[in-house]
């Protein structure tokens, strides 16, 4: 039986970053019942690591997004293919690429609607994940499409880029909205 229940809950809450009352609910049997000595014993735990992650050669892509509201791809100096997601070298030619600014518009090549998300996105459903072909790029990139009516999502839909006001230098800095939609979705 757990001794000093309040302290145990407080420590567990600090450790796994979950409110004590939710932990109390999950561990009700262990806290209040009298499980047999051989009954499976569960523990609250978490695995987390903090980073100071480097974007390496594609750092400029995220600086342009964050500082200039611009979307860049990278063009192979040999075959001319424009990559998005960008890369500093072409894996077909094994040659370097050069930065190239891409258009604001794109076409939805395929999509799905997520109605049941991961813990991180649980409160954001439903939302659209799509592969879009950005004007000027030769590959497709995965991005979210914001729609007033989620059921209007379709393959072939023309969309335009929209930037978040507070940008952090990550893929969450932009998304797409219908190209013919004049309204502000931010």
């Amino acid at each position, binding site marked *: 039986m757990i001794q000093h229940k309040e302290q145990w809950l407080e420590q567990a809450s600090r450790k796994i970053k979950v409110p004590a009352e939710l932990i109390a609910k999950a561990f009700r049997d262990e806290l209040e019942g009298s499980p047999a000595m051989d009954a499976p014993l569960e523990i609250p735990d978490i695995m987390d690591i903090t980073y100071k992650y480097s974007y390496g050669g594609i750092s400029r892509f995220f600086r342009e997004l964050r500082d200039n509201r611009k979307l860049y791809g990278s063009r192979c100096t040999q075959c001319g293919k424009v990559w998005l997601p960008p890369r500093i070298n072409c894996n077909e030619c094994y040659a370097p690429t050069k930065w190239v600014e891409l258009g604001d518009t794109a076409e939805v090549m395929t999509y799905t609607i997520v109605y049941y998300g991961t813990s991180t996105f649980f409160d954001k459903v439903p939302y659209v*994940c799509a592969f879009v072909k950005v004007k000027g790029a030769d590959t497709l990139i995965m991005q979210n499409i914001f729609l007033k009516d989620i059921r209007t999502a379709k393959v072939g839909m023309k969309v335009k880029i929209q930037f978040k006001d507070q940008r952090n230098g990550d893929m969450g800095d932009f998304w797409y909205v219908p190209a013919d939609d004049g309204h502000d979705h931010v």
Partner: protein
Amino acid sequence: MNKVAIVGFGTTPFRARWIEKTYYELAYDAAKLALEDAGIDKKEVGGVVYGIYNELFERQFMPDVYVHNYIGMGLKPSVRVATGGATGGAAVFVGWTWIASGLYDIVMVLGVEKATDNYNYTVGHATPETLKAILFSGDMTFENPSGLTAAASYALPLIAHIDRYGSPTQKQMAMVAVKNHKNAMNNPNAQSPKLLSVDDVLGSKMITYPFKFYDNCLYSEGASAVVLASERVARSLSDTPAWITGVGLSLDKAFAGERDDITVFSSSVHAGRDAYKMAGIKEPARELDFAELHDAFTGAEILSYEAFGFCRPGEGGRLIEDGVVEMAGSLPVNPSGGLIGCGHAVGATGVMQTGEAALQVQGRAGKRQVKGARKGLVQSIGGPATAWTAALLVEHIDQVKAKSLIKPPAGSRRKRKKK
């Protein structure tokens, strides 16, 4: 290359949760069953290949090290395979190479996964946290932030396919869900045996468009092991070894947006071609007696019919409508119940399906036996948007060589006791 046979199979039941066992305790159960089935002692095992997918599921990096110790494999050679959902099939592929190369005579391939020790305290169950653990497999810079899920990564190629061909329809997918839940009723180790109607599936709640609840496999916990052997040993252990006559492994571009055709499971096409070529299969729809496919989602099973040449592109939905892939059809798919019926204990799944294929060609599959099954295909898909496929051809071959020509290895019992 030396011939490779499956001479033993053991699996725990696949369950929503094995609260009473750790991953290494589950692995032990599967190892013990597989060794018993092969009729050998663990001392005779030359090496072990582990299939374990997700460190965050197991709450342990390098989990294979602890399994190896727990099942008493001492200083034997060992390597872990982690290829997403394809982990099990790819682990069998690696085990196959260890024997085909002549390195070892007996190799155990052991897959295990604990998927539901994760827990979301807000909703009070595992799933959203399990999905979160999986999402770390999507490219962390470009794909993870979009809120992609495993289901979404299959839905993206599928929606493009539906847009091009008008199929599979929601109803065709529901028919696959009905079939696989029903087939699982003949499998005592399955997590989701159920008699459903097409309307039950169509009426279940939308999870990830176009997949309804019953179109999805469930996350499982469990362990499965197969014992592979060289021809010399296999002949001495069994009158009916299940031969792995073809193998293929392919890894497609990780960013699906870079692929030539997003509607095709290209890694399955390539792995399938290699496996067919090795096994001498030219007309899979005619020559195969059954298949164990990676039906993580109903639509994925249908696209796999096309990738493996059971039909032409765009015609997969017709195979379920025409009953071809039903138990009574000419090419039953997932007699075990597949992932939808059995559950998806990721690292174990492909090993389980390989073992199930062995049971089929050995005529040991009980109530789920496909009559006269001699050749079957096993598929394991994994990675972001079906990047990986491992394909295996499991076959019954009549014994042509005189058994007396083959010497049993020292220390092994001559024949498995008939069950």
